[in-house]
């Protein structure tokens, strides 16, 4: 990449981080005002809520919380034809491709963001190695769930020419139920219960609650299993939908 391109890319990255930081800090201010004098709400203390927000914002890029549209674009442009000829499985291909990019974002955007954030508010760290491990596993599972979800949404392009519009709506909904905007613990119980019927909490809320230390012992294992369950379920659904979609695509002539 030419130096000028790199400069532009880096500037864009800093700009993105600045926006991230702004919204993250705004969220924390709102949380502080909400908590007022209360020490803990539904088991979550203010400090934990702040840490939650910081970590949530830092993994935005890694988890691609706002959704992606790369796949549907290849469908619409016809480039998918070359992808289908590859010997690698379609799902696996996109998985690998996505993971590579996401990993870069974890360090580049995620870590840097946390460092910047610490200039304003304190961010807790998990207590011991085991906590870190559990978080790592949970985050990876969360990523997998997120990927399968995005994969599925993009597959809508096999059926409708306006997958972008559909995607926008669906990604918006997933943001709400995933606990990205506000921790699910701070929402009414009935809302939390309903959201458990969706894969979304597994993407953001679960890993971050583990990080913050709100889940332990049996609860922790249950949460991880639940996540794994969703990951596998979505994986299975993705395969089915994909098969159906390919059949349709081939029949229609692309």
């Amino acid at each position, binding site marked *: 990449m030419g130096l000028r391109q790199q400069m532009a890319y880096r500037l864009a990255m800093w700009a993105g981080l600045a926006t991230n930081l702004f*919204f993250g800090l705004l969220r924390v201010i709102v949380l502080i005002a909400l908590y007022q004098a209360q020490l803990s709400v539904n088991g979550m203390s203010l400090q934990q809520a702040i840490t939650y927000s910081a970590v949530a914002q830092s993994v935005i890029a890694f988890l691609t919380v706002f959704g992606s549209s790369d796949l549907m674009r290849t469908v619409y442009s016809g480039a998918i034809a070359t992808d289908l000829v590859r010997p690698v499985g379609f799902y696996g291909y996109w998985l690998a491709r996505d993971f590579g990019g996401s990993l870069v974002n974890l360090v580049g955007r995620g870590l840097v963001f946390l460092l910047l954030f610490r200039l304003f508010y304190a961010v807790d760290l998990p207590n011991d190695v085991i906590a870190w491990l559990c978080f790592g596993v949970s985050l990876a599972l969360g990523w997998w769930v997120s990927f399968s979800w995005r994969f599925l949404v993009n597959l809508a392009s096999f059926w409708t020419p306006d997958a972008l519009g559909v995607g926008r709506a669906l990604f*918006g909904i997933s943001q709400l139920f995933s606990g990205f*905007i506000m921790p699910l613990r*701070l929402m009414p119980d009935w809302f939390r219960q309903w959201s458990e019927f969706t894969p979304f909490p597994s993407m953001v809320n679960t890993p971050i609650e583990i990080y913050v230390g709100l889940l332990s012992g049996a609860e922790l294992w249950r949460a991880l299993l639940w996540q794994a369950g969703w990951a596998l379920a979505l994986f299975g659904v993705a395969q089915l939908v994909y098969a159906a979609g390919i059949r349709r695509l081939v029949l229609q002539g692309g």
Partner: protein
Amino acid sequence: MDLFSTGLMSGIGFLAVVLVMLRFESIGGWTLGEVAFLAGMIEMSFGLMDMVFGGFDPDWFSGVVQSGRFDQFLLRPVNLATQLLGANFLLRRLGRVLEGIVFFGLSLWLTPVSWSVAKLLYLPVVVLSQVVAMGSLFMVGSGLIFWTVQRIEAVNILTYGGVELMSYPVHIYPRWLQRFFTFGVPFVFLNYYPALYFLDKPDVLGFPVFAPFWAPLAAAGMLLMAIWFWRFALRHYQSTGS
């Protein structure tokens, strides 16, 4: 469908806040209904602004300048600003206006507001002020593109971030932020102070009694600065080309 998804997108953020407030009941002493008043107002106005000032949307405008299409605007015998105001009209942005109306409606349902003729007359003035003020920010953002060609993310913080900021009562923010949005970019007078007037709430920041009515002044001030800057930016473009 497009309308719905656009409205949903922008509404999701505040919806999360609504849900959270069901547990907390108040923020900075303001109830959910009162906060919804703030959010509803500014969302309606932003949506309207987005439709009217669509041509000045930096995201769209940067594409126009980069591709060289902007020259076409200069070659037509019509005032430039007039051309731009109609150039990027997207009906689906109405979705955000509708979403704002929903939240505003929610607020009115939850909070008793004692309406008077004066308040009813001032309400559209406030909306107009907000539209003009945010439009000015768009104008500045687009003007900057003549120098940088790519849009500047920082402007997004003022426009989209500004909408979020104005959705909450100002006294929850740290002092330095409050001061910035009083003397820097006068957001405080656009939504918060008029809301104090409509909702009959006391002023905890100690501003003069007339502060709620400074919204049109703040908007006018921002507009004048934006127009001046836009003209300056245009002159720069004409002496350096694309």
